[in-house]
């Protein structure tokens, strides 16, 4: 009896000891600062994803601060004041030159699974890597394509163009309907879509960055660069109405919604941005920027503007934060992003909303991806903001000749690197 009591007592002690020694999941609250405003569909989707994560990991909860687009700016001040934040999101290109460059983002290599990048669409995990090191998990896919009204194209009897010459032919066909095929907003950044794409089609992916990184400035004087500038200018009057020079955002893109213009070279967010004026039944179509004769770039190369989430280097819950980042691009979470956020997914195999179907195909079949506006703004924001973007805009709008533009860029690039 005594022996049996001892045995029971020993078993109980052992049980208690085991219970104490067993790894206990520590309750933790991840603080997430977001670029979305609370009522936005993307915020609703992220809230649902956080809830789904908590349902699977009850020990982890979230405290979300919906800062809106100035998230990174606000976060910088807050971090300097010692505020503890675990996760944040922002446009990937802004993060590269921001928190990532300042060493405030957590490096993910070795923390995420080795094949993590393979589960995403081509190029997505690597596009914002610095010197081969990964910091960001892109979770929303935005691509730059021509977004257009299918009914007008059909009425004009034209086809989606595969080459620049076909693009001009399409413009001529649409002109017969007393409409213009394309429209722009007179804005330094929007105007750069055309020249940067044309340069990439001429010289290959990231051509604008490599042209600028030639410290002698001589690369600007290549005939292909001049040709790209001239081709961009040639669109005026034929594809783009001359009075579009007076359009300030969003006046130009709204003409597409109103049926006055056929299309706009813009991000895949355009259907969402125009949804309230275009209506739900608007016949959206999309096609990639066409190839150019003798060019090294392919029509399937794509400029993108992905939205990323990062874990902060100063996070006290790094393991949980990284685990959540992996969950964010899981099939389950990305389906929520697509369905509730109405945006493109970065995960391979997760279909995008029907309205973005053609952009999804373009992303899936992308032979290479590069950064929006040619990528110069990411690593050289000073040159981009003060010289390249405004000067290029003047050239595109016809205020300066293409030749004068490339010569000025050659001189300014040389001067920039000499001053460094």
């Amino acid at each position, binding site marked *: 009896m005594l022996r049996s009591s001892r045995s029971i007592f020993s078993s109980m002690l052992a049980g208690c000891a085991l219970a104490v020694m067993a790894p206990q999941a520590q309750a933790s609250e991840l603080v997430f*600062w977001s670029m*979305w*405003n*609370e*009522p*936005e*569909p*993307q915020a609703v989707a992220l809230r649902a994803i956080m809830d789904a994560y908590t349902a699977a990991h009850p020990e982890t909860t979230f405290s979300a*601060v*919906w*800062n*809106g*687009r*100035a998230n990174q*700016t*606000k976060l910088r*001040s*807050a971090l*300097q*004041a*010692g*505020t503890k934040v675990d996760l944040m999101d922002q446009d990937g290109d802004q993060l590269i030159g921001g928190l990532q460059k300042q060493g405030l983002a957590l490096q993910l290599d070795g923390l995420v699974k080795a094949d993590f990048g393979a589960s995403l669409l081509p190029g997505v995990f690597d596009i914002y890597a610095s010197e081969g090191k990964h910091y960001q998990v892109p979770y929303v896919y*935005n691509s730059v394509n021509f977004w257009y009204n299918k009914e007008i194209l059909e009425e004009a009897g034209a086809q989606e163009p595969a080459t620049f010459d076909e693009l001009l032919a399409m413009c001529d066909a649409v002109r017969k309907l007393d409409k213009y095929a394309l429209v722009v907003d007179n804005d330094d950044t929007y105007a750069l879509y055309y020249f940067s794409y044309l340069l990439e089609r001429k010289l290959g992916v990231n051509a604008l960055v490599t042209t600028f990184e030639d410290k002698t400035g001589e690369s600007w004087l290549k005939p292909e660069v001049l040709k790209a500038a001239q081709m961009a200018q040639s669109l005026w009057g034929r594809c783009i109405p001359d009075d579009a020079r007076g359009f300030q955002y*969003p*006046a130009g893109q*709204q*003409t597409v*919604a*109103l049926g006055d213009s056929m299309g706009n070279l813009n991000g895949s*967010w355009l259907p*969402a*941005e*125009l*949804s*309230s*004026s275009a*209506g739900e039944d608007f016949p959206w179509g999309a096609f990639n920027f066409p190839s150019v004769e003798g060019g090294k770039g392919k029509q399937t190369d794509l400029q993108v503007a992905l939205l990323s989430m990062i874990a902060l280097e100063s996070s006290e819950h790094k393991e949980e934060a990284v685990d959540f980042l992996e969950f964010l691009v899981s099939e389950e979470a990305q389906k929520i992003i697509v369905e509730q956020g109405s*945006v493109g997914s970065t995960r391979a195999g997760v279909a995008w909303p029907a309205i973005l179907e053609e952009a999804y195909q373009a992303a899936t079949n992308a032979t290479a991806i590069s950064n929006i506006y040619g990528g110069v703004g990411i690593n050289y924001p000073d040159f981009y903001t003060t010289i390249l973007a405004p000067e290029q805009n003047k050239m595109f709008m016809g205020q300066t000749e293409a030749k004068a533009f490339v010569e000025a860029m050659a001189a300014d690039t040389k001067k920039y690197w000499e001053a460094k």
Partner: protein
Amino acid sequence: MRPSTHQRIHRGIAWVILGGWGGFTVFLVLWVIMASLKSTRSLFGKPFEFPSAPAFVNYSKVWVTSHFGEYFLNSLMVVTASVIGLLVVALPAAYVLSRGKFRGRKALLNFFIFGMGIPIPLLFIPLVVMLSEIGLIDSLTGLTLVYLSVSLPFTIYVLQGFFSSLPSDLESAAVIDGCNDWQVFWHVMLPLAAPGAATVAILNFVGLWNEYQISLVLINAQEKRTLSLGIYSLMTSMQYSGGNWPGLFAGVTIVMVPTILIYIFLSDRMISGITMGGVK
């Protein structure tokens, strides 16, 4: 005496310029109100037409869904408290700097004037650090204290000029009647300074009502946002999410209403306060 031809021409030019300027301003305000009652499609399709069926729902959406009701209350609380606090601090300070005779008075006044020249963005990080230290970051109390502090230099500068313009004989008479310094200030000078106080109160109210930079940096929680942050949220939502442009104009109208009402009812008092302070 009848004005000469030369004077009539000058007056005519002034009327044309000021009338044109005033007319353009009124047109813009009316256009914003009109835009706030349209659908997005008609706003861009027929920007200068009156809305055929005014969409008052834009206002209710902004007020409820975009939380403008809460933001309005927050702005009202913060700005009212800041202006009251400002007057409580600035009136006695300006009086002393205007009438007091002590060493360093001028240096102290110059110190306040110097404060007017500091760019607000330079203060962001020190403010965030200090408010975090005292636990007032992301709080309306903290925002109120900052508003009060950054408005002090201008307010003291204006009020000091106003007190200087008041005749000193009244103070002497009060002292002869047996008033001490505090009584002279409270019973004699403060009532005389009322137009000046009203002027700075109105100017500060309008300025702080529209203030954006500081609140953007200091306030994060959605329930603590002010109206200007609400407008900012609406504007930035246009990118990526879909543009409720009439909603934005409804928000702008909500922000404008108190400012316009203040000008309608108190502009005479404000102008008289400014002109009184300007003449010695």
